[in-house]
């Protein structure tokens, strides 16, 4: 299925944000935004939901806590209990205080790495991946709004007129 895409290139983040606000208030859907740094406040404007990646991190962290505690229970209490200098550690409760540091470290380890891996996979940013930013300058000093004909009731010509009024620097049209 062929689709027409319009890229509106802006030279300033605030101008791009205001343009996005203006077009969305008139019912236009912004498909994506490409920018060299996050434009604060644009997520609700273009209808992006909040990411759930922090929830994932919490789950990984909890998993780390459970794994660390159950592992140490198995190693130190169940499988091979030892008597260190007359301080027996045959029960978990007596020993749990000295398990705190590793439980903490292991929870952080799993939460951080789990979150990082989730981040990379959800973004689909992995080694040898191809970037899909429309113009190379969008990682430098240009801010690009993407409009797709298939996602908008208004025609691309109308959207073009709207962004031109909003201070666009350059417009690129592409067939996808």
């Amino acid at each position: 299925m062929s689709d027409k895409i319009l890229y509106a290139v802006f030279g300033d983040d605030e101008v791009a944000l205001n343009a996005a606000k203006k077009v969305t208030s008139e019912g236009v859907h912004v498909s994506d935004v490409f920018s060299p740094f996050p434009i604060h406040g644009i997520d609700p404007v273009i209808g992006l939901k909040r990411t759930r990646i922090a929830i994932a991190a919490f789950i990984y962290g909890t998993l780390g806590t459970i794994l660390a505690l159950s592992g140490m229970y198995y190693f130190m209490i169940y499988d091979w209990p030892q008597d260190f200098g007359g301080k027996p550690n045959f029960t978990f409760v007596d020993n749990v205080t000295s398990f705190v540091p590793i439980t903490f470290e292991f929870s952080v380890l799993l939460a951080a790495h789990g979150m990082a891996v989730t981040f990379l996979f959800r973004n689909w940013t992995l080694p040898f991946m191809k970037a899909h930013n429309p113009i190379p300058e969008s990682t430098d000093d240009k801010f690009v709004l993407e409009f797709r004909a298939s996602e908008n009731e208004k025609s691309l010509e109308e959207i073009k007129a709207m962004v031109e009024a909003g201070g666009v620097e350059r417009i690129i049209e592409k067939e996808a």
Partner: protein
Amino acid sequence: MHQEASIREPLILGEKTYKDITDDVIRPIEGKASKLWYIFFTVAVITALYGIGQILYLLGTGVGVWGLNKTINWAWDITNFVWWVGIGHAGTLISAVLLLFRQKWRMAINRSAEAMTIFAVFMAGIFPMIHMGRIWMAYWVLPLPNQFGPLWVNFNSPLLWDVFAISTYLSVSLVFWYIGLIPDFATIRDRLKKPLPKHIYSVLSFGWSGSAKQWQRFEEVSLVLAGLATPLVFSVHSIVSMDFATSVVPGWHSTVFPPYFVAGAVFSGFAMVQNLVIVMRKVMHLENYITIKHVEYMNIVVIVVGGIVTVAYLAEFIMAWYSGNPYEDFIYLSWDAARGPYGWAFWSLIIFNNLIPQLYWIKKIRRNLYWTFLISIGINIGMWFERFDIIVLCLNRDYLPSSWTMFYPTATDIGIYVGTLGIFSTFFLLFTRYFPVLAFNEVKTILKSSGEQYKKQHQDNH
């Protein structure tokens, strides 16, 4: 948009645009390395190779080539380990703790501070590994099933906590640093013309496009990782201190150690950042981004944590005296230490760590780069002596005066230490040559609130 009080000094000097920021930071990567860089690099590599040679000699011959004896059975090895771990504390503190506190000045220095952290923790990791003597059995520190029962590692031991703490700290810092680098690598990828470098940075950038959803996740990840890394910073050096604090050696067995070690670590870490950053901003022409104000902010942190360290020393000294325990009269902070054969080490510690940094109360000195550079070197010497004093001065006065002895480092002791400085410098120089030393895409976000010309415009409008 976020407005900043006009009396605050700007963090980006000169009339800069977004493009200027990119250009200024990437220029050294695109251009050829300077002669100065090659000179530094050659010296660093030679020192590193010498250190590696010494390490191989140690591994081939045994730990006997160190100057340890039966009374002083820990010395330079653990001193250097703790020193390097301590230095490795500033990076994550700057990037994580200051991120949570929304300190904008962190942005110009966090990248290089984190790089320094990672390389310093690498260096720290070398010492316990080679200290094992049989480094090929280093994997025994992990709880792996084995043929001895299986016999597990001791989870009650702070030495094992250290294994988990340091490896977690290293790997989490590395991930935090790399995720921050991805968008900057993407910028470099999109600018370069030569096919091979372009391809390399393309692989490094993981195909980052900078779409809205990617940035949204990026910000969330940065925030949560900062939240996770903050307690990590405090836990790692607390655990390192417990290597000593949970032992029964007088002077080590001290409940003040965890907070005091953390403060000391931040102290030496910031001093090392100052040393690296002051040279880097000059050589790489980044004076507009790493300003005198940045240096001053760091010096303010240095004087705060230095104050905590000084108070901790006083507490140790007074408690040792007040306890009335004769063994406490011979610990590293005691009258005996001050007057004994290691008096020079004791006074080095006091002078470099407590007295000289007080000069930072004078505004002219804390805003002066030469003074800052010298005092920072002094702090690093002082912090090295702190660890040396804790270890050697507490051990050299054994319970029986007949076992009292001195520690003399051998050429291998010195060689390995100097070698790690070389390896560290090699890594750092490669970093400055091929990596964006400033998180420039992040710096762009504060241009309008903290850039000089924007602040001026804002002031004129009022």
